[in-house]
């Protein structure tokens, strides 16, 4: 057997130091979809995602959960982006569900069209998901997305948010956080990285459309992600779930840190996990053990410049954003809160 180069990271088979309950300790009907042998493997192995890709992980869990919730009666429309490219170079496909890619900015409109076709054909048992990255959702696909919400079409839109245009080589999107380095927000000049006080929160914009269900989720808590997708599929009308999916390539992080970074993003307050229904925020995930933005940022090269002494103000400003989120969404865990 050839000598393999020594891995830079220790392979870990279990998450440690989290509040995650082991799957085997749960009642069988609460166990994760991925733990069942009859999971659908909707996004199958053999695709070309990078090692440690948060998006591939999030998509696999989300779509399999949706498949279980719909008795495998599911069609997906995909925006252009990493997820589309790494899963489907003809003649190969990693999708075992009916799947269509049309354009970068129209996934939700295509999904609306599919939903209309199913309705007219009396196939309301077949459900529709649109999915895309943050660029395809918060920027170029924003008009169509708002249209789907506005009409309350029976579509679940899933945004895999890795906070930049990764497929084209890590350029800034309107979901890129302040200070982050991208190919178009380089860490140079007076305000290194992405400028502060820009960007938008599409989950909050979605809630403002007063659609039946909106949620944010993160790949560090896949059980929560599955539950939210399952809940979404039990509702008719327009729904939006945004999943926080670290991108080792774009963020300059270790592939083995994807889950940890996703957890820290939530636990520092930078990425609040919320649910909204009909225009109101109805639930938030409380932070059980708070970490600092520095803990979160230091795992990623895209934030490396904020640790330089001359940029200390940037780290402070990032912490202030996280603090504001924690206050705004009341994320502090108190004894007796549901976590």
């Amino acid at each position, binding site marked *: 057997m050839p000598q393999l180069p020594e891995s830079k990271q220790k392979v870990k088979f279990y998450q440690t130091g989290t509040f995650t309950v082991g799957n085997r300790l749960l009642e069988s009907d609460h166990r994760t979809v991925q733990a069942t042998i009859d999971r659908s493997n909707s996004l199958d192995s053999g695709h070309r995602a990078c090692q440690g890709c948060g998006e591939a992980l999030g998509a696999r869990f989300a779509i399999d959960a949706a498949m279980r919730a719909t008795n495998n009666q599911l069609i997906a429309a995909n925006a252009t982006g990493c997820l589309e*490219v790494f899963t*489907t170079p003809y003649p190969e496909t990693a999708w075992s569900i009916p799947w269509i890619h*049309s*354009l970068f900015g*129209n996934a939700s*409109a295509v999904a609306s069209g599919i939903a209309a076709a199913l309705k*007219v054909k009396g196939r309301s048992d077949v459900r529709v998901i649109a999915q895309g990255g943050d660029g395809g959702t918060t920027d170029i696909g924003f008009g169509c997305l708002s249209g789907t919400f506005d*009409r309350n079409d029976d579509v679940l839109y899933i945004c895999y948010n890795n906070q930049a245009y990764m497929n084209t080589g890590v350029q800034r999107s309107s979901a890129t956080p302040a200070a982050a380095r991208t190919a178009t927000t380089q860490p140079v000049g007076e305000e290194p990285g992405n400028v502060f006080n820009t960007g938008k929160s599409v989950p909050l914009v979605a809630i403002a459309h007063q659609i039946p269900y909106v949620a944010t989720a993160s790949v560090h808590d896949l059980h929560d992600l599955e539950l939210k997708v399952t809940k979404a599929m039990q509702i008719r009308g327009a729904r939006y779930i945004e999943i926080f999916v670290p991108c080792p390539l774009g963020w300059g992080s270790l592939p083995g840190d994807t889950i940890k970074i996703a957890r820290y993003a939530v636990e520092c307050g930078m990425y609040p996990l919320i649910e909204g229904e009909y225009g109101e925020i109805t639930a938030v995930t409380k932070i059980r053990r708070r970490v600092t933005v520095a803990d979160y940022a230091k795992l990623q090269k895209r934030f490396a410049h904020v640790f330089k002494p001359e940029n200390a103000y940037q780290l402070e400003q990032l912490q202030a954003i996280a603090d504001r989120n924690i206050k705004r969404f009341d994320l502090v865990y108190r004894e007796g809160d549901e976590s």
Partner: protein
Amino acid sequence: MLKQIEGSQAVAQAVALSRPEVISAYPITPQTHIVEDLGLMVKSGELSPCEFLLVESEFGALSACIGSSAAGARSYTATSSQGMLFMMEAVYNASGMGLPIVMTVGNRAIGAPINIWNDWSDSMSARDAGWIQLFVETNQEAVDVHIQAFRLAEELSMPVMVCMDGFILTHSYSQVDIPSQELVDSYLPPFQPRQVLDPLAPVSMGAMVGPEAFTEVRYLAHHKQRLALKLITEHADEFGRLTGRDSGGLLKEYDCAGKETVIVTMGSVIGTMKEVLAEMRAEGHSIGALTVRSFRPFPIEALQEALKDAKRVIVFEKSLAVGMGGILANDIRMATRGLHLTVHSVIGGLGGRPITRTNLRRMFEKGLNDQLNRIHFHDMRMDIVNRELDREKAQRRSGSAAENILSDVGLVAAAKTI
């Protein structure tokens, strides 16, 4: 049934008779009346089952049709002008995926300067997009060709645009025979998609293709359009046998056989031309006309046959390839290679400029006397153009040409003379 009816209403009724299952609608002048009427029919239950989607843009309109067509539903939308440009990415996508969507284009100019009136710039901007483009002369033909379009699109798995002159046809009232539902049902079978999104037989549609296959894929799109030439004729003939009408097909000849000079054009303008040409023939001139009904695919062989005896061809078109000249004229030149004839390119009617019997007659006579330039701008005032050119030469900040010209000759100028 004969009805005195607006063009848009007639088209809406023809579309409804074709039993569309999903219609997406976005307002843009001058196609809006068509989707308004369809919306009314869906809401009242007259057209059922059908889903009517009020989308947020033309890009959304065609994208929704892409989804619904891929899911196996007969899908329809309509657009014009800026709307066509706004949906252009989806226009190419729909044909690339072989989705048999039918779309009406109420032909209108493209800005800037913004202009809501008729010319063909919108359809022409999509001429290479892989859609079939059928131009119609009258509202009767618009009705008939829409029904043929669904059959053609679905048989070939290729989207079809029915191009009708905005306002001139869409907003004009005329007597139109609306076919019966039985006739349309006997002509147009239910939609059987070539590929469909179905959980029972999952497929991946619209995936990536690299250089190793892209050329062949593009060639096949071209090849299928050439095959469409035959089908367009057959479907038009079959429809003609059912209705007794000559609608659709590749070309329509207006007494052009054996004529020395042949006018070639598309759309409704032939209506005015026919009268002028009849007058001129009565005076002894050897002049006829033909219209190109199928602009894409372009009927090269049929044109060669129709123009084989002509000495001079005058191509009249409401479109301009800026920096080049006539678009239809260029295609006609290509199609008539090897024939010994001169092709004059005449560009007119841009942005709704009226095309009258008088100005047509003047232009035809110029043509007969070999006084037309290779590119001739019909009914254009060169003095106005020169005045603006002088102004631009004299002054760096000369302002908007459109504004300046209207100050010279429009209502503002007219008011100054009072």
